[in-house]
């Protein structure tokens, strides 16, 4: 690890995902950044809005379009020390979705006897705005 990384700087990284899981590969490669980034001991959160909410839809099946179904990878987020996944309520509602349509993502809370806790927090557009403005590094995919 390089000298700079031993400086102990911890920033709030927010990965903003706005696109559907398929049609383009921004979602897949965006997720790869988040997982790699987890190794850097930064404060990491994910945000899903606009068509990005489709990325978390349960029961995805890509057989008919012949692309890789990487949706199971989202379940790894909790293992990579991501404890906050924000989903914008308005984006869900506009697409006829609710939290029940999303994959049940969890993390194990090391401060609470490794109890499994939900990763997904559905927030309003106003709350999302606040979350974005309070983050240090934004990566949009």
């Amino acid at each position, binding site marked *: 690890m390089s000298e700079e990384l031993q400086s102990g700087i911890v920033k709030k990284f927010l990965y903003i995902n706005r696109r559907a899981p398929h049609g383009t590969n921004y979602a897949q490669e965006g997720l790869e*950044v988040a997982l790699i980034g987890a190794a*850097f001991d930064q404060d990491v959160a994910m945000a899903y809005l606009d068509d990005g909410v489709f990325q978390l839809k349960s029961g995805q099946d890509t057989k008919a379009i012949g692309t890789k179904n990487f949706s199971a990878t989202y379940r790894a987020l909790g293992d990579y020390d991501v404890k906050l996944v924000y989903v914008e309520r308005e984006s869900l509602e506009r697409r006829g979705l609710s939290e029940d349509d999303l994959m049940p993502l969890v993390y194990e809370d090391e401060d609470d006897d490794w109890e499994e806790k939900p990763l997904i927090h559905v927030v309003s557009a106003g709350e999302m705005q606040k979350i974005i403005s309070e983050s240090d590094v934004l990566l949009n995919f």
Partner: protein
Amino acid sequence: MKFAILVNEGPYTHQASDSAFHFTQAALEQGHQVIRVFFYHDGVNNGTRLTTPPQDDRHVTNRWSELAEKHDLDLVVCVAAAQRRGVVDEDEQKRNSKDANNIADGFRISGLGQLIEAGIQADRLVTFGD
């Protein structure tokens, strides 16, 4: 100010790489530091030396290479995105037994950690994409 630049689109189809170039050049001319330019997604296609645009158009790749040489700029192409899209340096050529490489002068291939590291070190990470 210390900037890090992220380029998410390839040359010509999208203006992102042009805008990133102009931003980077302007920042450097004004005495700012650009600690790294990271190429991700189709942005990795900015780093192939085989591009040959018509002579009356800008040469997006060469322009980056020249800026890198002039300012000792760190141009990093994401290895995972590059492998998907066939952007290859000598090491990658050997590692994956390919018959050629195509990385342009001034570019190097490395991991996504370089993007995260740039985000940590820079005062601002500026993304150019679609």
